[in-house]
Structures are given as C-alpha cells and as structure tokens.
C-alpha cells in the first residue's frame, strides 16, 4: 500500500536551474494537490487538480507549472529556480473534497534548496 509517493526526497538546485518533482498515487484519487511549507509556516497551495486533464492555480502558483495527464501522476515543474523556492514540497491526494471520509493523504515531502 504505497499511497502517495514523492521523488526525490532531497534536492539542491542552483539558481536558474529547472527540475520536476514527481508525485504518484495508487489510490485512484481524483483530487491531487501540491503544497509548499516554509520553515515554521503552514502549507500554501501551489496547484491542484480535480481530475485528469484539469489543473487549477492555488495561492502561490508563480514560478511553477503542473500537468495531470493521468489519474495517478501529478508532477510539479520548477522553471528557473530562485532562492525563494527553497521549501519543503508536499503532494497530496483525496478521492474528493468536502465530504466526510475524504481526507487528503500526503506524501513524505521533498526538501528543496536553491542556492
């Protein structure tokens, strides 16, 4: 029972480099989310998806891109990495939103440092 799997766990990027954070879930969930968590802070929603082929911006989408070509995968792309993107990134999924028992399951996180 893998749940939500994120790769890599850690990454150091140089300013201006690009990378893709991978997220996959095996629970056949419709909803998937990407959050970032800065030190001592809460979770900020970057992008989310309510199903394959559909993506929506969250609170802090600038500097990121996503795609949802399959139900299972929801990669997050960083173009031209900046120090302000140093953070821990969490991917999550849920069957739906707003109902009992439809809690979001989180991955273990990706710690990204941009230097």
């Amino acid at each position, binding site marked *: 029972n893998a749940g*939500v799997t994120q790769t890599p766990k850690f990454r150091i990027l140089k300013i201006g480099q690009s990378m893709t954070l991978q997220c996959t879930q095996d629970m056949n969930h419709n909803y998937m*989310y990407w*959050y970032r968590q800065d030190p*001592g*802070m*809460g*979770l*900020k*929603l970057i992008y*989310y998806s*309510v199903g394959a082929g*559909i993506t*929506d911006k*969250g*609170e802090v989408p600038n500097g990121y891109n996503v795609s949802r070509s399959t139900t299972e995968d929801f990669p997050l792309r960083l173009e031209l990495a900046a120090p302000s993107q140093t953070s821990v990134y*969490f991917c*999550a999924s*849920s069957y739906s*939103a*707003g*109902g*009992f028992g439809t*809690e*979001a*399951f*989180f*991955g*273990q*996180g990706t710690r990204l440092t941009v230097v």
Partner: protein
Amino acid sequence: GESVGLHLPTLSVQEGDNSIINCAYSNSASDYFIWYKQESGKGPQFIIDIRSNMDKRQGQRVTVLLNKTVKHLSLQIAATQPGDSAVYFCAENIEPLFGNEKLTFGTGTRLTIIP
C-alpha cells in the same frame, strides 16, 4: 484574501492533561473543516473532520468543536501522551463561486507534551 489562521503558534501541555488548539477562519462560505497532525519530518496526517452543519464531532481522544457564529474551530485532545507532540493544522474546504473547491491550511500550532 480570506484565510485560515491560528491564535497560538506554540502550546506546552503536561502529559496526561487535556489540550485545546484553536483556529479562526474568515471565509463564511467554508463548509468543511479538517484537523491534521504533522510529526517532524513527515507529511500531515488526517485526525478528524467536521462539516458546517455540525458543532461537535468526537473521535478517539479528540474532539472538534465548530462555532460558526464567531468562525472558530478547536481541537481538544484528552489525556495527552508524548506521541501527541506535533504541529497541528486546521484546514478548510472552500467551494468558490467560480472554480473548483480546494483545501486551505492555517499556519499551525506546535504542541509539546511535557513528560
């Protein structure tokens, strides 16, 4: 913009005592609330949820209270144990007039259980 916020960033409680973690929200359109627990180095985990047509819901050692009049949410943990030490987030599900519903998190409260 509207957001979920927490009154206290840190809370220390003696082992065995009860703890109360508070959360204020400002979006009157929110209809679903969740409490998450995040242990160090891990992703958030679901604890308990409540819908806006309820004012109380109980789980194992946890109770969530919702006061819609003052837009306030609380998490009560009974007979705290060392394993309860974590950061606790409240989250609200917002169903906007336009766009898809999404989960928005508050800043979090760090709960420390003193042996």
